[in-house]
Structures are given as C-alpha cells and as structure tokens.
C-alpha cells in the first residue's frame, strides 16, 4: 500500500509563532498561560488562558480584519509548512489534486463577537460584510485555497476537540484512495468569549495553571493558535525530492455515545480508537514509543484517559512516555489535535519528548510516566496522538519515523 508522508509543518501557538520558536518552548517547558487580554473577564471567576502573543502577519489578507483571526493563524502556519515542503511553487503540478482539510471548534466566531459588543440592541448588529464573509466555517479552507492555490476537494471538520485528527483521517483516506496527491491538513481556533463562558460555567477551567495528571489538577485552560501539516503520497513526495519528516500511518475513530460533556468513566471510546488505530497500522501496542495524551487537565479526562491507556497497553503502559503539551499551551480545541500531531512529528524528528509541566503532586489514579516538568531525549519510532471531544467524539492518529 502507498505510504503517506508528512513533508511540512507549521505552528502558531501560545508559546511561539512558528515551528522553531514553539518547539524551543516545548523543549524548555515554557508556560503559555497569561491574564486574558482579548476581552474583559471581570464577570468571571477565572481570568487566565493561553493566548497567542506577539503575532503579526506581514501581509494583509482579504477582509482586512485588524485583530487576530483564525484565518491569519492558519495562513501563517500553512505558509510555513508549505515553505518547508517546497510546495509554495506548484507550477509543475496538477493543483486539482491538492486538497485541504481543516478542523475548528468555533470557526470565526470572534469577529462576530467584536462587532456585536459595542451595540447590543439586536443580534443583527453582529453582521456586516466582513462577518458574513468569514462566518461560514468553509471560509477557512477558501482562504487557504485562495492564497496557496490548492484547488482539490476541501472539508472543514466540526468535531469540537478532535477536529484536527478527523481532518487528518479524512485526508489520509483521500490520499490512500489516490484521489489527491497532497492535502494541507490541520486546525485553527481563537478564544471566543462564548466558549470561554461555556467552559467556565461547566467549571472546567483551571484558575491559574493547567496541571494534567497532577493530583490537584483543577481543569483545562483554553488556548488558541493553529497547526498545519502537509500530507502527501510517498511516490509524489519522493519524485519531487521533498523532505520527509515523518510517515502518517493511520488512525482510529470512535464515539462514546455516553454523555454530552463527560467522557466515559472507563475510557471505553478511548480504548476503541487507540486499539483501532494500532490495529489499522499493523503494529502492536509495545511498538508505540510515545503517547501525546489528550491530557486536558480536567479531573475526569485525565483519569479516564489513564485507565484507557492501561487497558490498551497493559503492563507496558508504565514504560511508554505519555505527556500532555496542553500543560504549556492550553487546550486549543479544534486546533488541539492538529498542533499535537505537529508535535508528534517533531518528536520523531528531534528525538526529544516534550514534558508535562506544572506537575507537582502525583495522583494514585494517574500513575503513568507523564514526563514530568523536564523534556527527555529519546529516539522513538512510532508515536500516538489522542484527541477526545465533548460528546465522546474520539480520534487517534499514529505517526512513524520514515526509515526508508
């Protein structure tokens, strides 16, 4: 069967704009949390999140929104990824075989919020020409198509916190089927006040810091940013002499079918999607060298995910490093699993496992190797990236070193 490879990566995260800056921060265990700047939190009990800092785009996109948008984040990450993969220039290729799949939780909700705040007399005031243009989620794929000349099939994955991995899975199938040569995949999200309020009222937000798997963990922190990967058919990449960063091996999907917001307490859906992914790829659980955990920092998620990992990996669960990069950048919602897939590729490339920071007190119910606080040098061959969403909407992806 045709191999599917990753040839370019792009990141905008709360700990750095660009892959290089973000990765340095991940390795150093930098905390991306800050006091909320983009809206007033005085009516809330929580005032912190992980915002993107010092982001500046050097070109003006159409729709000319002054503030940050998902469009700008994904544009930046996509350009970075395409430059690495050598696909900025597509002159010799059939661009109708270049697709796009992007995951998002809230799409461009923030421009609507910004427009409505000053005049709340009626909801209609939240709409002008710009909001009408950017509001439909597929405006995100259209922006990328426009600026980067990808004219193959597109989709936006609205799968809440597993959106990025769903986009990757969709792209993988299209590539395997030989419908396309290249797919630009990933995810992007901002921090809308709407979602902040929702998580706040569910009592899911940590007040100070995100502490995945720690005994005293108090919840997640919302983050923002974008992650983009260039996925392509191996024969196509090899023929054009592209740099091959990693191989995208396969995925597993599942659904808890259990509760609107709580994960299944025994991690039933998580077990199925991890097991299905490992089986699809043709590996055994022992082959996995690193797990990028969903690890949100909520009491329920981290406990259920730990149980699920033990059920899938049995005894070897204790030997596999399993960290949550959400400890540093927060939960990027629809962009989370895309950014974490980029991290997985960087782990394969650099042989370094980023840590779970803010880890202070061990929890008897969460007793795996979470790579506490300090990055670890370790050459691994296969990595697994978990993403679980509200409604029990789960997706796991697996990446391997390209050793050929």
């Amino acid at each position, binding site marked *: 069967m045709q191999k599917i490879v990753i040839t370019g990566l792009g990141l905008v995260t709360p700990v750095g704009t660009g892959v290089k800056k973000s990765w340095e921060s991940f390795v150093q265990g930098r905390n991306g949390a800050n006091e909320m700047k983009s809206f007033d939190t005085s*009516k*809330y*009990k929580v005032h912190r999140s992980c915002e993107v800092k010092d982001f500046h785009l050097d070109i003006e996109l159409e729709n000319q929104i002054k503030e940050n948008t998902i469009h700008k984040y994904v544009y930046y990450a996509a350009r970075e990824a395409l430059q690495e993969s050598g696909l900025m220039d597509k002159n010799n290729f059939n661009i*109708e075989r270049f697709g796009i799949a992007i995951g*998002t*939780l809230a*799409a461009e909700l923030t421009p*609507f919020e910004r427009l*409505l*705040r000053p005049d709340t007399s009626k*909801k209609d005031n*939240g*709409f*002008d020409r710009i909001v*009408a*243009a950017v509001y*439909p*989620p*597929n405006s995100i*794929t*259209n*922006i*990328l*198509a*426009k*600026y980067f000349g990808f*004219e*193959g*099939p*597109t*989709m936006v*994955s*609205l*799968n*809440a916190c597993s959106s990025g991995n*769903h986009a990757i899975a969709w792209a993988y*199938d299209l590539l395997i*089927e030989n*419908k396309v040569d290249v797919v630009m995949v990933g995810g992007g999200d901002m921090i809308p*006040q*709407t*979602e902040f*309020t*929702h998580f*706040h*009222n*569910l*009592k899911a937000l940590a007040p100070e810091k995100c502490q995945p798997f720690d005994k005293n963990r108090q919840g997640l922190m919302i983050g923002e940013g974008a992650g983009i990967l260039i996925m392509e058919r191996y024969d196509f990449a090899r023929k054009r002499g592209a740099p091959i960063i990693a191989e995208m091996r396969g995925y597993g*999907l*599942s*659904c*808890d*079918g259990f*509760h*609107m917001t709580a994960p299944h307490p025994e991690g039933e859906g998580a077990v*199925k999607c991890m097991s299905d992914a490992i089986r699809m790829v043709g590996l055994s659980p022992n082959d996995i060298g690193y797990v990028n955990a969903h690890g949100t920092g909520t009491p329920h998620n981290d406990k259920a995910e730990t149980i699920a990992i033990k059920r899938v990996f049995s005894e070897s669960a204790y030997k596999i490093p399993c960290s949550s990069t959400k400890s540093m950048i927060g939960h990027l919602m629809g962009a989370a699993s895309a950014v974490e897939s980029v991290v997985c590729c960087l782990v394969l490339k650099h042989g370094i496992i980023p840590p779970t920071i803010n880890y202070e007190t061990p929890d008897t119910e969460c007793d795996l190797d979470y790579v506490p606080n300090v990055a670890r040098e370790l050459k691994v061959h296969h990595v697994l990236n978990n993403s679980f969403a*509200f*409604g*029990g*909407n789960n997706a796991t992806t697996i990446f391997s070193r390209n050793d050929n």
Partner: protein
Amino acid sequence: MGKRVVITGIGVVSPLGCKKEDFWNGLIEGKSGIAPMTSLDLTNYKCKLGGEVRDLHPETHLGSKGLKYLNKGTRFLGSAAKMAIDDAKLPVDGSLSNVMGIVIGSSLGNYSETTDYFYEIIKGNPSELSPMRSYDVALNSSINYVSVIFKIKGLARTISAGFTSSTDAIGDAYKMIQRDMARVIIAGGVEQISIDLFLIFYIRGLLSGLDGKRELSTPFDKGRNGFVMSEGSYVVILEELQHAMERCAPIYAEVKGFGNTYVGGRDYTENERINRAKKAMSEAIEEANINERDITLISANACGCKIQDTVEAKAIQSLFGSNVSNVPISANKSNIGESYGTSGAAQIISAVMSVNTGIIPQIINHKENDPDFNLNLVLERPLKKEIRYAMINNMDYDGNNSCLVISIFNK
C-alpha cells in the same frame, strides 16, 4: 473493490412535512414549502420568504424528557435520525453500537445557537448561564446529542463544506463503509433557519428578490434571480450490503459512486467552472462503473442562482452531448428552497424515492425557458419512468462540486 453500500432507511424533516411520505407526496403533487417567514423578524429587509419547518413534533420521536434543552437544529436532526432508524428497522438496544457511526453535513452546525448564547452573555451575567447549554455551544452539538441517545460508538463526524456539506457527508460515509470502518452509518444533513443564516445570504447578495424583482425559487428559469432559503434535516441509513441482507432490512437503493471537485478561493471563468462541475459528475459515473448513457435521472443542484444554474446546465449539456434530451432532470429546490448544508441530502432522498417508485417529481414555478439551456426538465406533472441509475448534483459557488450516483438495488 470495497464493500457494497445500500440505503436502508430514510428520515425527513422538511418544509413539505415531517415524514418521508409528506415530503415525497408534496414533491410529486407539486406543492411548495415556501411561505413568508414567521420565525424571523424581516421587517427591515427586502426578502421575506423561506422554507420553514412547521409541523414537527419532536416528542413523538425523542420523547418529552429533556426536550426543553434541545435547540431547533437538534430537534430536526434527532427526529430525522430516529425516523430513519425506525424506517430501516435498526435495533437501538446497543447491539449494533460498535459497528454504527454517524456522519452529518451541516454548513453552520449549531453556529446560530452559539451566537445566541453570546448575545445572552453580553446582555446579562455570563456566570448565570446554565451548563446545560452544552446542548447549544458547540457547532456539532446536534450530532453529539444523536450519538448519545442512540448509543453510537463506532464513529461520529461532522463535515462543513458550505452548500455541499451533506452530499460530502454521505459520500464520506459511503467510503467509510466500503473500507469497513463501520457497517451502518447514519448520514445526511441538518441546517436551521436563523437570523445568522439569513444575514449571511442577504449581505452576500444571494437571495431571490434582492434585485427588487419577484421573490421565487425558479431553478433553470430565464427570470431566476437567486435562491429562497430553507431548513430541515434529511437523513439516510447507509449500510453494508451483507449486514443489511442478514437482518432482512428493506433496501431502497445502492450507492455507486461519488465525485468531488473544487471551485472556491478565487475567481474562475465560466468555462473553468463548467469543466470542474463536469469532472465531479464524470468521477462519480466512472466510479459507478457505468457511462453517462446509463444515467436516467439527474437531480439537479439548480438553486435558482443566475450563474450557478448556467454552469450546471452547460456542464450537463457538455457531458451528455446529444443524449441530453433523453435524460429527465428534476430540481427539488423549486419546492423546498435552498437548505444550504442539507440540500444535497434532500435531493438524494428524492432521487432514492424516484428510483424506488419510478416517478420523477416535476419542477414547479417554471415560467420561461432559458434560451441557453437545452435540458429535458420535468415540468407540469410528474414523469413516470423506470430508473436504473440516478445522479445527484450538489454545488457550492465558492466551494466543492459534489456528485453522487445511486442505482436501483439488484443482488
């Protein structure tokens, strides 16, 4: 060669009624689901019409417990999904949970409920909003709800791709069953009318009547001037053939091919658009392992927009050549309007019914032929015709062209 995929159940929540029979009878009786909109205050706007869902009784499908938490989109999708499940005689006792998935297309999902929530935030005290609003505040919460109440454990996916969302979802579900990722998938679309949806179309100048002329859904008509917006949920049960046969399920039709091209992002010439539309159709036909001469029904995208209908008509004319006059064309949007992310699923269900009954519904509101077109439009009365293969076109002016080919089921 992957597994064969059949359609074993249908569920409809539409402006023509909230049963598949109401929808189908409405189409073949030439009824219109379009009327002055009652759910929105459009006093200050030029356009007034819409295809609203009026007589849905969600409690008969979903029970009354917890109903108050369910927003409009969730009621639509939950009811349509339940009707499709019942129609397919699928057990919902959990015995199929692990092999069952859901893939739904919706351009906006629960976006309008999410923005309603924001409106409440800025009008009042955000901390007081109930955590039960999880039923509103995620773009895929309707799908989450359905997966929870029907204990779906295989997979859940929500696809947003503008006007083609639901065809893309059904195409995706078909591929997943072919590859054995699931054996049964609840697939289709949902879209609900809201001020958000209205304003997006209104501001972008897509609605009929904005030019001061008549406000009417008139696909392929010379005087067409935009579409009339609409809402609903259209759901099919896609099932792996062996699985369906083993449980003696009713089989409506077989899904044979899916094609997908793109015309978003930049300005395209009319010819480029025509070629891309044609290519989506060719791909679907090729995948079905037939040629265009085998197609005996086209369910057209035909939304009543000037350029889009022209592109579609010319693409069909170019692909079918001299045979074009032999292929009857239906256009459901004349009756139900443009339901955005669920419009393709509506057409697919109509085509499935045509394949089953040998009846093609007529296009209504048609007044004057467009001299540029040389199409065999079904007008005035339904056409009786045996149909082996039907092709369903679904297009986004700034997005995908998607095409599905279905056939009558033969062992």
